[in-house]
């Protein structure tokens, strides 16, 4: 939150609130809510669901208040739902700075969005307060109309607010954070119908029955999200512990994983594959631990046998990954991460597209990080020099397409990468073990 609340955002909040009042007043006169107790009941439900949002794997927060709004608009009509939605602002609380502006905005926008949705429901042919076997499938069209209206008003108003507060373009904010959330609205709408049916049939008591499973699902999902973090932290911690003894490779895997993840994003990969690529990159060098110390630390040129030992490490890393079901594909990639496009690499001497895609990505990221970090036998290269070197080795060592993608990543997010890498190293697990300087390998393993 910026130190002073932008004036434009204040003006916007006031005008949204004014529109909401102008909308509510005639509604109260023409179709007043049947009972204030019912309004309070639905208001409390909206407040509770806004106060406990669910986090999605993408990091966005959802609340199930739309479920309650749909139930209220079917069962009780526009005035009740618009009044009940006013409680939503209270979920934000008054602790943060400028909180009052957020509270007003949130109440006004949700009241407007759900009130308009309720009117759209009626306009679409929906009947308020009557739900039975005969309502189907006729009720579905008005529900779809109401859902679309709620989505457009809600996301439009919030996106404008975020854009004004952060000083960004409205369209871009809407597209990146809200455009795709319509699917969750359509996921919630059936629940709302259900809630309305149960409420009309039995009353508020039955809502508790629906809350239990939703809470259970939410808790299980939260445990899942937390376990994902535990998983990530443990894997990174163990990798860091393996690397920590060598000041020159410290943080290497972490950085390669970060670069690989950005490459995956640039190539348009989505979650299960992106995660696999990231963990393959993170674990690509754990097998080096199996290479005897005296070989790894040998300052002179390696003889045939010693080089053979070095060549073992992708297979050893791959063995570890192969035991983890969701990294099966990644294990193959790690096995081949020292292959070269001209077939001169190891262990199998594959060429070009025979090399798995993940392996080609990891090999470029690995080489880039080796060049840009300091080693015992040479100083670190600048980013420009390293990229030039990658380009020079296109077609012989690296896949030209992958290198081109890599350049785009560096161009777009170079700054972000540098700071994130620093951060990853600072807050990472690199200091878990006592420092112990030992000279780095001087093989041609990392790049030719």
């Amino acid at each position: 939150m910026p130190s002073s609340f932008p004036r434009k955002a204040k003006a916007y909040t006031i005008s949204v609130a004014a529109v909401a009042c102008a909308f509510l007043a005639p509604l109260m006169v023409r179709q007043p809510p049947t009972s204030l107790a019912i309004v309070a009941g639905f208001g409390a439900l909206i407040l509770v669901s806004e106060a406990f949002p669910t986090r999605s794997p993408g990091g966005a927060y959802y609340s199930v208040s739309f479920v309650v709004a749909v139930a209220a608009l079917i069962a009780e009509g526009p005035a009740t739902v618009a009044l009940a939605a006013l409680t939503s602002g209270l979920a934000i609380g008054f602790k943060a700075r400028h909180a009052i502006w957020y509270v007003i905005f949130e109440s006004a926008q949700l009241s407007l969005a759900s009130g308009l949705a309720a009117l759209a429901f009626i306009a679409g042919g929906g009947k308020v307060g009557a739900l039975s076997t005969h309502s189907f499938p006729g009720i579905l069209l008005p529900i779809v109309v109401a859902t679309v209206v709620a989505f457009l008003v809600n996301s439009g108003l919030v996106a404008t607010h975020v854009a004004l507060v952060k000083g960004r373009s409205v369209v871009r904010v809407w597209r990146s954070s809200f455009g795709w959330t319509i699917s969750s609205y359509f996921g919630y709408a059936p629940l709302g119908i259900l809630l309305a049916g149960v409420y009309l049939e039995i009353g508020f008591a039955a809502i508790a029955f629906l809350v239990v499973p939703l809470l259970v699902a939410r808790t299980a999902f939260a445990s899942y999200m937390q376990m994902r973090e535990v998983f990530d932290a443990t894997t990174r911690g163990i990798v860091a512990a393996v690397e920590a003894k060598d000041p020159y490779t410290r943080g290497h895997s972490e950085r390669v994983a970060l670069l690989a993840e950005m490459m995956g994003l640039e190539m348009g990969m989505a979650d299960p594959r992106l995660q696999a690529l990231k963990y393959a990159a993170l674990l690509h060098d754990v097998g080096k631990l199996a290479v005897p110390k005296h070989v790894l630390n040998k300052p002179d040129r390696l003889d045939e046998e010693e080089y053979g030992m070095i060549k073992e490490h992708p297979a050893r890393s791959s063995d570890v990954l192969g035991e983890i079901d969701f990294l099966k594909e990644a294990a193959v990639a790690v096995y081949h991460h020292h292959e070269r496009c001209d077939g001169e690499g190891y262990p199998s001497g594959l060429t070009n597209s025979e090399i798995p895609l993940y392996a080609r990505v990891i090999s470029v990221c690995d080489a880039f990080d080796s060049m840009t970090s300091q080693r015992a036998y040479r100083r670190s290269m600048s980013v420009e020099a390293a990229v030039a070197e990658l380009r020079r080795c296109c077609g012989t060592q690296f896949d030209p397409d992958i290198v081109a993608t890599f350049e785009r990543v560096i161009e777009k997010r170079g700054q972000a990468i540098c700071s994130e890498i620093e951060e990853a190293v600072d807050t990472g697990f690199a200091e878990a073990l006592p420092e112990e300087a030992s000279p780095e390998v001087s093989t041609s393993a990392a790049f030719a």
Partner: protein
Amino acid sequence: MTTPGWARLPVIVAVSAGIALGVGYGLSDLKTDLVFFAFVFLGELLGISLPGGHTAAISLAVSFGFVLLPSGAGWGDIALVVMGGGFAASLVRRRGLRWRSMVESSRRSLVLLATVGLVEGALGRITILPMGPQRLSVLTMGGALAFFVLADTLWRAALEALPRRIPLWPVWIGTLRALGSLYAALGALGSLIALSYPALGIWCLGLFLVPLIATQYSFGRFAWIRNTYLQTVRALSRVPEMGGYSEPGHTRRVAELCLEVARDLGMSSVDNLEYAALMHDLGRLSLTDPPPPAIMATSDQRRELARVGAEVVGKTGYLEEVAHLVRQSAEPYRQPWEDDDSAVPLGSRIIKTVSAFDDLVRPGGPGLTARDALERLHLGMAYEHDPRVVRSLTRVLEKRDWR
């Protein structure tokens, strides 16, 4: 998972009971039966694999709903919907899943039939009447659900514990803890289905698929990540061994034996113990040269290794309890002039003793027989090793038939 021969029995009993009830009682409301049959069938197909077996959460909730219908389902209808729906789905499944899903629906149906029979015998029909004597019906319904959950988890626990000859009680508690909230959710949804079906008809079942799928999906994801996490920790526990920092296979053998000892001692939640056992040797990564086995190191060295290992685990920021178990796993179970050091958790004592045992018997070590190694641990009971753990380890090894 291999199924013991006697696990076939419930399937045979369920199929014959289903046919007998269907033929004996006949059907009362064919339309409702068919609707619920279709949803039990569909839910069974959407089932997921959880650790400890296949789970068809959606079918279970729909079955609950059917049994609780206010109009009252007869025995023949229950047999058709609950048993028939489940078995029909099993028949169209892939071969690998068919048997597991049949065992699952047999268990579900038999426990559900027992529940209905019990409540009917004691109190009359267990339908919930929205307009009727609500308090009584809610109580009956709650009691029926509780009975179902207890019986079903007991059955699952027995399947897990009896073939491996481990105590039933802690396994039952563990199963209840793992599945209790899922069953609560399914019970609530099932009651709602029963309440709203008369008013909303078939549409209500379609609408209920949304929260049902959400519940099942969340549990499935959680089970998946838990399983993946365990696999990953197991795989990574081999990393110190790869570099010669600890003996090949040591960590894994220790983890396995620790779990058996823990179950023998009646611990019901063993997840953290397994993680700690798998990671107890991580501290060895900090050594420059591959170290001697723990049994030959001095107690200060061991303590230092445990401290560094715990630090690695603790850095993850989530596994405080695991880190604590690792840290304390080098401590003696009692201090001089005291009976017991309560700061050392039971899990740490188990890891300490089992790890020492493995160091004594593994190939490449002193190579003692299990008997001699136990004798050595007995000598350490005065100070290092908790007598309870040593006795339990002896029992576990006797079961394994080690010499």
